[in-house]
C-alpha cells in the first residue's frame, strides 16, 4: 500500500516535471534551441499569481492572470532575445538563454526582495483517504491537470493545422517554409504554449508548497530539462515519459531512508544511464546526418 502511495505521489511530481519538460522539448524541437530561461518563467508565473492575489484575491483569477502574463513574457523573450540570433551559432543562443535566466531572477529579486513570499491562498491542503491510503488533494489535482494537458497537447499536435505545422517545422524548417508555413509564427506559438505550461507548473508547485522565491524555477527547471533529455529531447511523448519516470524515481528514492539524502544524485544517474544505453533518449530519434 505504501508503495502505491509512493507511486501516485511520484506520478504527480513527475506530472509537474512533464509539464515543464514539454516546454523545453517543444522549443528545442521547433526553434532548435535550449531555452534555459524556461524554468524562470515558472518563477515569474509564481510572482504574477502572488501579485494578482494581493490585488484581486481569487486563486483562479491569479492562475489565469499568470498564464496570460507568462505567455506574453515568453513571446517577448523570443522576439527580443532569441529571434535576432536565428542562424547564429548554437552557443551564442545558449549563452543568451542563460543570460535571460539571470535577468529574470535578478529582476524578481530587485522587485520583490530576497525573502520568500508565502501566497497561502494558493495552497490546497487536505487529503482523501482510501482504505489505508492517504493522498493529498494537491496530488490528485496535479495528476488530473497533467493528464488533461497531455491529452490536449497530443490532440492539438496531431489534429490541428497549427499542430501539424509544428511537427513540420520541427522536422525541416526550410521544407516547411516552402510549403508556405510562416515558421516565425510557429516558433512564437511554441514559446507561448511552453510559457503557459510553465505558469501552470508554477501553480501546481505552489499549491503543494506555497513558498515563492526568485529561484523557484531553477531546480525544477533543471530536473525537467533532464526529464526532456531522458525522454528524448524534441519528442513530446518523450517529455511526458521522461517527466513521469523522473518523478517516480524521485519519490521512490525519497521513500528509501538510505537513498533519501542522495535523491538528486539518483535522479541525475538515471540521465547518465539512459544516455549511455540510448544516447537519443527513450523516445528520441537519431538524427540522420546529412551528407
Amino acid at each position, binding site marked *: 500500500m505504501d508503495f502505491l502511495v509512493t507511486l501516485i505521489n511520484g506520478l504527480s511530481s513527475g506530472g509537474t516535471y512533464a509539464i515543464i519538460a514539454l516546454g523545453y522539448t517543444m522549443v528545442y524541437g521547433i526553434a532548435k534551441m535550449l531555452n534555459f530561461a524556461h524554468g524562470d518563467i515558472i518563477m515569474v508565473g509564481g510572482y504574477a499569481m502572488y501579485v494578482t492575489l494581493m490585488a484581486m484575491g481569487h486563486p483562479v483569477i491569479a492562475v489565469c492572470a499568470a498564464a496570460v502574463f507568462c505567455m506574453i513574457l515568453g513571446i517577448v523573450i523570443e522576439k527580443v532575445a532569441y529571434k535576432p540570433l536565428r542562424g547564429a551559432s548554437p552557443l551564442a543562443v545558449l549563452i543568451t538563454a542563460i543570460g535571460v535566466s539571470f535577468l529574470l531572477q535578478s529582476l524578481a529579486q530587485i522587485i520583490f526582495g530576497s525573502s520568500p513570499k508565502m501566497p497561502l491562498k494558493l495552497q490546497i491542503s487536505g487529503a482523501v483517504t482510501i482504505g489505508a491510503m492517504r493522498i493529498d488533494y494537491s496530488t490528485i489535482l496535479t495528476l488530473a491537470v497533467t493528464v488533461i494537458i497531455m491529452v490536449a497537447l497530443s490532440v492539438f499536435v496531431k489534429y490541428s*493545422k497549427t499542430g*501539424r505545422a509544428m511537427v513540420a517545422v520541427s522536422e525541416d524548417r526550410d*521544407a*516547411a517554409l516552402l*510549403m*508556405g508555413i510562416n515558421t516565425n509564427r510557429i516558433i512564437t506559438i511554441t514559446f507561448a504554449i511552453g510559457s503557459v505550461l510553465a505558469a501552470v507548473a508554477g501553480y501546481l508547485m505552489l499549491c503543494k508548497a506555497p513558498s515563492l522565491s526568485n529561484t523557484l524555477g531553477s531546480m525544477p527547471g533543471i530536473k525537467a530539462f533532464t526529464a526532456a533529455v531522458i525522454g528524448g529531447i524534441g519528442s513530446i511523448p518523450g517529455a511526458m515519459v521522461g517527466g513521469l519516470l523522473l518523478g517516480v524515481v524521485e519519490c521512490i528514492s525519497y521513500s528509501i531512508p538510505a537513498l533519501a539524502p542522495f535523491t538528486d544524485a539518483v535522479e541525475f544517474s538515471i540521465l547518465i544511464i539512459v544516455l549511455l544505453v540510448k544516447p537519443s533518449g527513450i523516445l528520441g530519434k537519431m538524427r540522420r546526418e546529412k551528407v
Partner: protein
Amino acid sequence: MSETLLEVKDLEVSYGVIRALKGISFKVERGEIVSLIGANGAGKTTTLHTVTGLLHPSAGSIVYKGHDLTRTPAHKIVSMGLVHVPEGRRIFQNLSVYDNLLMGAYSQKNKAKVNEDMTLVFDLFPRLKERRKQMAGTLSGGEQQMLAMGKALLSDPEMVVLDEPSMGLSPLLVSEVFEIVKTFRENGKTVLLVEQNAKKAMSISDRVYVLETGSIINEGKASELINDESIKKAYLGE
C-alpha cells in the same frame, strides 16, 4: 501570345566570399517547361533557392507575375502560386502521407478546393491514395518523390520548381517522374526544372539554360541544344 511568368535578371548570390551566382538572367514563359542543367556546383540549386526565397541575392532581380520576389519571405511566395519541390524531396517523415499532402495545402483557405485538388492528386498518384494513412518516412524513394510532387500540387500552383526530381530513383521510376512532369504542363502548370539527368530533362523541356560555375554559358530551345556538339560532349555523355 506568350506571357513571361518569371524573369530573373543579373542575379548574384554569394556564400560569404564565394560568389555562387555571377549575374545570371533567364526567363520562364507561362506553360513552358524550362530546364537548368549543369554540373555539380554550377549553381542550379542556389538559383532555385533564391527564386523561392530561401536565399537572398546580393544583386539582381526576380520578378514573378510582376512582383519582385527578392525581398518576399519564402512562406508568402507559395500563396502567389509558385511552389518549390526541393532536392532530396524533404517530405515530413513523421507525418502521415495524407497530413503531408495537407501541409501542401497550408496556404489554401478554400476547403472544397483542397478536397478537389486532393482527388486530382490521388488520381495522378494512386499509390499515395493506398498509403495515405502511412507515415511518410516509410515510403520508398519513388513514392516519396510522388508525395513531394503531390504536396506541391495541393498548393494549387501556377508554377512548379523541381530540384532533381529523379535523384536516387531507379531508371524505370525516373521515366515515370518525367512523364508526371509532362502532365504538369498538360494541366496548365509552368515548370522550372533542375536536373543532373540532362538528357531526360532536355527531352521534355521547351527551353534549356546551361549553367557553369555560376554563369549561364548557353541557352536555347531544347530540341536544338540536344543536338549541339559541345552540349552532347559535356552533359549528355555522347
